[in-house]
């Protein structure tokens, strides 16, 4: 099945590093900027036709067809316990990531540019951060104007240990 998508087969663990710089795809939910390592990203999608999955955890928005592969859509907003989406945000966008051969699409409000960030700007999560966020985040990058929360994709998609179900 893997042949269908001309995907990069690199795993999650390798991170493109050029002189202590890491590349992140940025995205926004409720004005907050998040980032995920660029190498786990397969695709960035606009609004998609989604099939709802009855009885699924509320964070699972449904599943969609990405060039013949079934992708499970995760509502990141819901996952991070952010307030319900306002109507003006519209359909939003999705970032498709590969987790152990399974594709997931992370639904966010908007996807931003790819940033290459120096490791020097990285900081661990402040202890005051919401425990739930601390669990889903590996750390924070200090940018000029805002803070970039790096999401831990494997944890974000690990529903077995989450109490949210």
């Amino acid at each position, binding site marked *: *099945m893997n*042949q*269908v998508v001309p995907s990069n087969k690199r795993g999650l663990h390798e991170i493109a590093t050029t002189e202590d710089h890491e590349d992140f795809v940025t995205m926004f939910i409720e004005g907050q900027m998040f980032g995920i390592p660029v190498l786990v990203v397969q695709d960035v999608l606009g609004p998609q*036709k989604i*099939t*709802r*999955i*009855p*009885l*699924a*955890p509320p964070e*699972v928005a*449904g*599943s*969609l*067809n990405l060039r*013949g592969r*079934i992708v*499970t859509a995760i509502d990141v907003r819901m996952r991070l316990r952010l307030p319900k989406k306002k109507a003006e945000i519209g359909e939003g966008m999705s970032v498709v990531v590969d987790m*152990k051969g*399974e594709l*997931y699409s992370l639904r966010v409000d908007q996807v931003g540019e790819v940033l290459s960030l120096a490791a020097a700007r990285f900081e661990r999560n402040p202890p005051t951060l919401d425990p739930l966020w601390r669990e889903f985040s590996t750390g924070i990058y200090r940018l000029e104007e805002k803070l970039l929360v790096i999401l831990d994709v494997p944890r974000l*998609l690990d*529903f*077995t240990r989450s109490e949210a179900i």
Partner: protein
Amino acid sequence: MDDLLTEFLTETGESLATLDVELVKLEQNPSPQILSNIFRLVHTIKGTCGFLGLPRLESVAHAAENVLGKFRDGELTVTPAAVTLILASIDCIKGILAHIEQTEAEPEGDDKDLIAALNAHAEGKGAAAAPPPAAAAPPPAPAPAPAPAAAPEPEPEPAAAAPVPAPAPAPAPVAAAPDHHDEPAPSVPAPVAQAQVPAAGAAAANQESALAAQTIRVNVELLENLMTLVSELVLTRNQLLQMVRGKDDSEFATPLQRLSHITTDLQEGVMKTRMQPIGNAWAKLPRIVRDLSVETNKKIDLQMLGAETELDRQVLELIKDPLTHMVRNSADHGLEMPEDRKKAGKAEVGKIVLNAFHEGGHIIIEISDDGRGLGIQRIKNKAIANGLATEAEIEQMSDQQIAQFIFRAGFSTAEKVTSVSGRGVGMDVVKTNIEKIGGTIELKTVDGKGTTFTIKIPLTLAIVSALIVECANERFAIPQISVLELVRTTATSEYGIEVINNAPVLRLRDRLLPLVSLRTLLKLQDSEDDRAETFIVVTQVGNYTFGIIVDRVFDTEEIVVKPVAPILRHINMFSGNTILGDGSVIMILDPNGIAGAAGEMAAGAQPVAEKAQSRGEVRAEDQQSMLVFRAGGDDLKAVPLALIARLEEIEVTDIEASHGKPVVQYRGKLMPLVTIDPAFQLKTEGQQPVLVFSDHEHTMGLAVDEIVDIVEEQLKIELAVSQPGLIGTAVVSGKATDIIDAGYYLTLAWGDWFGSEKDSRGTTPEGLRVLLVDDSPFFRNLLTPLLSVAGYDVTSVESPDKALNLRDSGATFDVIISDIEMPGMNGFEFAEAVRHDGPWSQLPMVALSSHATEQDFERGREVGFTDYVAKFDRDALLQTLAQTLSTKGAA
């Protein structure tokens, strides 16, 4: 040819081809890595030979291995002479292999010279020993078996293998093809003419390459990938078809049709590459059974039928272990020791029969033995001991239900753990494995006669046909395999969905079908509008049939089952998901999961862990569905649901009178309405709820106040009452409920329903066992409570055959009550059969019939009925029973 041998030959052929190359490399560059490679290859060959019982091959390989071992350990240096020697032994091995391939046996003779040379070399005298010519290996003697050239058996000998050195090239005809056995069992060895044809080696080599050109070895992964690609192609084709559908004039239509055909052909072709005869999964069984028979001192005859039945590789892999396990069980637990068998009047040799065949897109595999059966009593004890059920529960179960306990985790009936089986892991794993691939397993067991397991599995897991349905604007796929039929209901149709205390049911051909609403089950949003029509997908899981209510039904589509994402695996309503022709993702419903949920809903307080299917069976056989209603007062009344043909609400204005009694026109006939007691007042406006009882041409309506519920419960009458119309009082759903005597009301409505009434009552005996044989569920349901209330212990069966089965399984009764008019064997024949021989030949038998003429009485007595009672003269029946039994007691 034996599959194991074929595999060995193919594998060794490949190893040898590698060896040739490696050895030449070794000569040029004696690196330790090459050496150990070679050593390993030769070692493998030696090991496998020993396993397969090929001593000659083994000894050569062993000698060569010795030399190689010395090389590897640095005790000997690699010299051209040594390599030549090794090459010679490899050639020898090849010669022997070629012979084996031809005849399945090693050539006669030995390789003393070669082995001696090898040993000498190993001892350091290598230089002295001149390498014997390769001809030391006697050329193989191919026995040209008169088999058709199109042998289907893949015997891919790599063409790269060097031709077998043969001293004399002979122009032997290449007509010989390896004999092919469809049966993988190491059956009869090929009819081999042992004549040594010294020149046929070359011919064999030629033929080998011819064979090699016809078959190739392909990596399984490649096939899997191919299958995946074809699956995707099927999806894409479906997608295109969907787009062109409805556009008749599309220029794409013709090429698309062609594409469609080709895709189908391709799909079939690729499927075929994955198909393997089920015999492959059985190949090891004869050996296992043989070993077992030695170990346990039993004589076992294993018969394998339908070994050529093909099924998907993947499925085959998955059922291999369960099958092996079950055959082991049969041999170890099922079959008795020869002396026990003799005592039981059976042949000393126990039989285990494996039978595989295709049936409607499924493979059916039966594993049966003629052993002692499962030992219901032992299962009972064990189930109680292991806390799987209480004694009371067990008491209420039929033997078949008790047998189901063997599928429960932690259950093993073997009295002692043998090395073979009896470790308590087993049938539950078997069942889980089979269900995992969408299969079912059923078992039948007769004490002393044997046990039969029937496994039903889908042909392939990759592409299945599914019915697409819609509910609350969401579409779902249901595997076609589980769908029995579709029923469309509308507000105006004759059969609508009826709801009894939120439990929907449907009348389907005189049966009430429990329904589940997909909407409720999947917690889908309620659509506001009342739909004009709904569809019911009648689904079968195991023995449990139920209906799934959906909004719409589309067509069927070939779908490719893809597993759901790991985070969704806990939802057991879905077995997977797929992409439809229109590109949308759709969930595939799992009928097993739905049956489970439906069962839970119905069974309420039962422990969730219990499997849905067994629950379904319990309900189906053991418990009675009771309709609870109110009529003439607040107290609850109930009647067995099976007695009720329909529930109706009749417009009060439609009620007419005939002879002062209320009647309604119902389905073109007049249906008398009766009331629960004379004081009961029919409603004066609106609709009158009516329970409709029907049996053949008679229909009667019982007017009630309100229908309360349908409950499933073991009907146990606690208080018998003498009030007419009531059988007694039972606890239903925790409430005291009067069980009404439908028979009483039937006679009120139709005097001739059961014949004339009499006014005498017999005495009531206690705890006497009555066997009731009647094909009509109506009468069985009517008589069972009546007789129970009179103190009898009643067992009812629907046919004389079943009754005779009971007899053969050792059940005992005090009296038999039998209907006369029954399909198949009628009552007279049944009586003759009972009287003829067997443990029941002396039992009193009472005939029941609506044809109570003098001749019938006479005939009944002639064939052996003790008495004859008009159906349904309840009191006379009770009286007759009492009389019959007392005479019997006195005699």
